[in-house]
């Protein structure tokens, strides 16, 4: 259909590679002539065709008034380079925070756009590679916070590929854009894979085992309830007597601990193992179990609660990932 498709693709690939080399991972980025690319959009190229047609008309009819219109439109096109560039120029983009997500989910990344002076900037489209675009407008001076969804394709640190910020505002003849790469401390957890029938390894137990085995519970003492502890352990009687909120402590907790153990998943590659462990961690938390995590060279003592869950998942996410330059997880 399009004879130039191959060439266009090649040019696009080359440009992308070149742009990636130029694009350093940054923590804050001021958009200026060094960072912004600008080229005519499709409509802009069409506009040039119009100008050429008018030039032919003027030349053939030797009509200077047609030339005036032709040159006026050409100058309009040239000035629109400056104007469109100004839509992004002078903006500062900062990453604010990102939430950790499971692989495959879109991570909500919060960015902060700031400008020194009030200035209307419209139709700015933000898009992480592979993600949907989002259109924003800026007006006032100062900070504007925007949440963009970044697709994730690999576990590890959240490093959502290139963020493309682009605009054709106001005339649509030019497209100004930039690529920025941000690093976030947020992690991308392994996507959980359901795996019920796992033989329990050393001292490990399937979930539900603990919850059902009430007879083996051996109540020892009460301690102050801390946020994050399971409600199952709340000493309701004491609470009902208005003696405060206590949680019950049991003896021999080892027996009732669930271990999510690397060694249980022998015979699979790393990612498969981590995916199943991720599921088990989530399932244990959902059940209210007390669970620990064993990875080669690392052991997380059993506990429960949101913080514990996050710690465990983060460990799984970052397993084998180099602290410094974590494997990128950009999509596509």
């Amino acid at each position, binding site marked *: 259909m399009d004879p130039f498709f191959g060439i266009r693709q090649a040019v696009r690939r080359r440009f992308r590679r070149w742009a990636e080399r130029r694009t350093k991972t940054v923590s804050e980025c001021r958009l200026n002539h060094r960072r912004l690319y600008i080229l005519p959009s499709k409509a802009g190229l069409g506009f040039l065709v119009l100008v050429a047609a008018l030039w032919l008309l003027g030349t053939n009819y030797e009509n200077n008034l047609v030339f005036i219109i032709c040159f006026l439109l050409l100058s309009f096109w040239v000035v629109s380079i400056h*104007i469109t560039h100004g839509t992004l120029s002078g903006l500062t983009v900062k990453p604010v925070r990102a939430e950790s997500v499971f692989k495959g989910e879109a991570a909500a990344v919060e960015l902060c756009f700031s400008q020194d002076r009030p200035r209307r900037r419209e139709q700015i489209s933000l898009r992480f590679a592979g993600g949907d675009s989002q259109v924003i407008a800026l007006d006032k001076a100062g900070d504007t916070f925007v949440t963009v969804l970044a697709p994730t394709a690999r576990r590890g640190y959240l490093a959502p590929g290139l963020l493309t910020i682009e605009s054709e505002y106001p005339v649509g003849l030019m497209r100004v854009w930039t690529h920025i790469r941000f690093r976030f401390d947020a992690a991308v957890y392994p996507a959980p894979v359901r795996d019920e029938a796992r033989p329990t390894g050393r001292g490990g137990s399937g979930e539900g085992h603990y919850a059902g085995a009430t007879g083996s519970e051996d109540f020892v003492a009460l301690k102050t309830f801390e946020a994050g502890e399971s409600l199952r352990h709340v000493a309701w009687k004491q609470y009902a007597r208005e003696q405060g909120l206590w949680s019950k402590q049991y003896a021999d907790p080892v027996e009732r601990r669930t271990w999510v153990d690397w060694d249980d998943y022998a015979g699979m590659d790393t990612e498969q193992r981590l995916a199943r462990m991720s599921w088990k961690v989530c399932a244990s938390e959902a059940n209210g179990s007390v669970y620990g995590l064993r990875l080669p060279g690392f052991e997380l003592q059993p506990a429960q609660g949101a913080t514990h869950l996050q710690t465990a998942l983060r460990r799984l996410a970052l397993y084998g990932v180099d602290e410094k330059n974590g494997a990128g997880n950009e999509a596509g």
Partner: protein
Amino acid sequence: MKKTGQEMKRAEWQLSRNGLFWVLFAFAVVVLLHMEYLPPWITVTGLVCVLWRILEYRGAVPFPPGPLKALLVAGCVAGLALTYPSLLALEPMLSMLVAGFGLKLLEMHHKRDAVVLVYVALFAAAMGPVFSQDIPGFIGVLLVCAVAAAALVSINQPKARGLSMGPAVIALKILASAVPLMLALFLVMPRLGAFWSIPVPKHQARTGVSDSMAPGEFSELVGSDKVAFRVRFDGEVPARSMLYWRGLVFSDFDGREWTQADFYGSDHLVMDTYDYSHVERLGSPVSYTVTMEPTHRRWLFALSTPGTTERGVQRLRDSRLVNGSRISHRRNYEFRSWLDHRLEPGGLHSYRQRLETSLPAGFNPETVRIAREWARETPDADTLIRRVLELYNRSFVYTLEPPRLGRHTVDEFLWQTQRGFCEHFASSFVFFMRAAGHPARVVGGYLGGEVHPTEEFVTVRQYDAHAWAEVWIEGIGWVRVDPTAAVAPERIEMSLADLFGDDEGFLANSQFSPLRFRNFGLVNWFILQRDYLDYAWATWVLGYERQQADVLNRLLGGIDAPRLGLLFLAAALVTLLPYLVVRFVNRRRDRLEPTDQLILRFCRKLERAGLPRRTGEGILDFARRVAAERPQMANEVLAIANTYAMQRYDERHPPRRHELKMMVRRFNPAKKVTHS
């Protein structure tokens, strides 16, 4: 999730309400701009399409179904084919653009479609100057372009915005900043000349002196105050009585109508560029530039006897100039004329002698009889001419409303009615001379014109049209004889407007022409200014390519790449000027308070000495820390910090900025360190 993504995509390509409004507006103004060149049914179709699209948008009317659309397209194609014999001309092209645009409106939803339509609107608007090049028309074209530019902006506006003039403001801003660059391009870009032959607009009626002359035709021209051409002399304007603008030479008479004759044989009509063998040129020539209004005829008007090196202009043996093609747009011609000359003094070719004395058989027997009688009595041509002119002078009347004449026009005019306009006098005089055996011919053109009081140019209007005679005299050649002058000598010295200003027939076609009210000083001043503006427009804009080299040389002192580059640089600077000014003003506003500037300078000095101020550290805390770390400069540092703090935060404190400035300037941490 997926759905919202799709909705977002939809919002990206869907045309907003404001965008739709502006595109419709742009289309409507294009149709109105070109209404006089479009067949009425196209105009109506276009406006109906606009209305339909509006109703469609409001949900009152559904989108036209497929078959109906096909029917509409077929109808338009058939209509165009019926309206125009050939589609390869300018009007059919314009009509096609407008019809296509209108039909496309009905199914326009995408931004992309809207953008294409805006481009079509721009092109259609830019065709305007091909049809008409006057100033008001061009202002109209520019306004339409501005509306189209606003439409382009509106398409790219956020969808949520309602109807607004916002896009127009943005478009005008961009257009305004585009003007300097446009001017530079206009000045510099070379004009290459037509690449291929082009269809010429056909809607205009031919105007001006026609290629034949029958009684009553010239008095019709007097009804019009339209400009025929303008002339700028490279020096003083010659006397009014010399301004006989020759255009056509009529040698064939059929009893009623004078027409141009064709020459042939060795007397071929078109002269070679440098062949002036048939003319004796005496004295020095006058140079002038004629700016012709489009007449859609080929005749050019010049003083006798002209020479020219204009491309595409032919010089004919009877000393007139003819353009290679019909004059379809305003154009300048540079001519030189030798007012003092002898044309064909050496004698006429025998067939030419026959041609210039031939009379139609069976017409005007009375005149033929009397002419032969007079010729016997006065064989000398000069004396005979004087005798005929005396006849005119004795009892003839020069009038705009001559009585109608029957079959023997000359007989009736000369011996019965004796009331006529210039063509009656010229026709009867030439007939008489021919009957007397002297070669004679009628010349058509314009006489005089209005000399602008301050600028050296002459405006010739249609009512200046005139016909006179030329008689060939042995040894002298063709001599101009204006029989009208014998009747109304004031016609030569005054313009027709002065002569017939109160007459009914004068300006009969333009009842409200301001020329009717010239007696009021202000009106007269206004007319002169308008004439000058028109003249400048024709010279400096419409005919700019003739001035281009001159203008660039005068503007830049030469034409070479660096100079042209500088011109564009200057244009770019003018374009950017508003932005630079805004930036400069803002920078000044952003500048720090002077005391703060001083303290920052102090901090920079310390930083260079290896003592950076921590983020969020107050200036006094910082000074105390520095004092602790480097006791040798403790006094100085603490003094500066305290002075600053008092200056900045204690309002009761008298300003001691200068003191602080001196302290900071003297402060040199590096020196202190080395000394210790």
